[in-house]
């Protein structure tokens, strides 16, 4: 299980590092799942279901499951928003790549100019 979480997280991380927003969205989906597996693992070994059947001594910790449920809902919401944003980006730029910052480029240019002038 830990290995599975690792593989899912690694794949997610690789995708998130890409420049296209559609990849980033899938990446975050995977990362979210990887972390959710971790959370379930944090609850310890699997055992009888909690609350059902009235068993009181040997049941799975229900708290991480509640965490995961909350986390899934939140991830779902954010990913829906990201997709909407990717769509909007596609509308205004006909592409879903994250662009460079205009101001950053201007300052980099200025710095290059100053360096050129300083050079003999």
């Amino acid at each position: 299980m830990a290995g599975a979480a690792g593989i899912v997280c690694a794949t997610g991380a690789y995708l998130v590092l890409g420049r296209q927003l559609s990849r980033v969205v899938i990446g975050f989906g995977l990362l979210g799942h990887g972390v959710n597996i971790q959370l379930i693992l944090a609850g310890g070994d699997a055992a009888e279901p909690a609350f059902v059947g009235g068993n009181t001594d040997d049941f799975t910790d229900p708290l991480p499951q509640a965490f995961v449920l909350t986390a899934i809902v939140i991830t779902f919401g954010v990913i829906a928003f990201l997709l909407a944003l990717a769509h909007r980006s596609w509308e205004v730029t006909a592409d879903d790549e994250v662009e460079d910052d205009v101001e950053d480029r201007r300052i980099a240019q200025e710095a290059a100019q100053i360096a050129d002038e300083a050079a003999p």
Partner: protein
Amino acid sequence: MTVLLAGPILFPLLGAALSIALGRSRNAQRAVGVVTLGAVAVMSLVLLLRIDDTGTTAIQAGGWEAPVGITLVADRLAAIMLVIAVLMLFAVLVFAIGQPGAEEHHVGFPPVYLILSAGVSAAFLTGDLFNLFVAFEITLMASYVLLTMGGRRDQVRGGMTYIVISLLASTLFLLALAFVYAATGTVNLADLADKIADLPDGVRSGLALLLVVVFGIKAAIFPLFFWLPDSYPTAPTPVTAVFAGLLTKVGVYALIRTQTLLFPSDSQPGALLLVVASLTMVVGVFGAITQNDIKRILSFHIISQIGYMIMGLGLFTVAGLAGAVIYIVHHIVVKTTLFLVAGLIEERTGTAHLDDLSGLRRLEPVLAVLFLLPALSLAGIPPFSGFVAKLALVQAGVGIGEHVVVAVSLAVSLLTLYSMTKIWANTFWGPNPSTDRGRTLTPLRQALMVGSTASLAVLSLAIAAGSGHLYALSERAAQDLVDPAGYVEEVLRP
């Protein structure tokens, strides 16, 4: 007490629901927003006075006992943060109502703004690591919407960076939660304070550092700050002002809370935090110096100022933490004022680029004064609030012999002054104004915008005038932080 603790979270949420229902009438939405935040401001003030009297207070929402139930806790630090945050949110809402733009054309602005307030209050008042995560998510979700409201090209670009980084931080936070739960079997902060002390050294420092990274991204400390100046300036003025004043400070609050409460003094990463603080200050202010747009200059100054707060935390003494608390209070007010003034300048002239601005003091003398007061305060010139806050930090640093970080902080103050002078000289000084492309506003709008900005400027002066009381209060708050036994006892009391 129950109402006072739960109210700041519930009222804005109910207000948001009401605000959505009243979407057809802009005036009704405005009334709901102002009344809700006004009520929360009064509640949080009462809460602060009560807490200062009685000490830390906790309630168990839903009636479940402490380690299991949903705990809401207010200690002095949380109450101070809540008061200053809500006052600021109120002032900015008034500004937003006055400004043509963000608030006017989007039916979603008032409800989302209220949800943001609820998330911030929840982050301050929660006594549970998982609920802290949920509070962060509420705040962030609202902030995503506010930041990209309008859907302009640069907003989409800035918003993407912001959302991707925030989402990464949230994922890491969740991972940290999984580790904490696996190691201790609880997420209640007070319970954790007991149980983390029993863990092996390596696990403890691992958890501490993971939390530093998570909250460090949110607080924009070095080297995790790149997203901030990219995304903040693209939003409408009121939104940028709220983000600049509040969001990174929620990260700083979480950092202070977790590092002081959860980890015993031998595994607190004090030396690391001091190095990070120095670098944050220096890199932030150098970034500001190279910029040419008022909002971007101010955004880089946020980073630089975060360094001062981290410095106070890194000292891990009563004096240091008191300095950090007073610095946060001062910073929230002053930074918001500066961004609102930048917005007023933009409103008047149509630009916030230093190259296109000149001689504004002839056109708008009031604006010049409103800029000058917080700008001098930010640089730490006496007798303004920035001086008081920096003095407290410097004294704390010298007190335990951390001379390097003190020297860095003083040098950075000087550079901050230089950068503020640059804005002043380019914007207000110089020959007659060449640009006057702004819209003409009705007197009511003008009064609302200038009035809310002025009231924040006055609040900053009041902080300086009442600094004796405020410092004493911060010191009591810091005392609670250094010795968290009272906090733990109050939460876990059967």
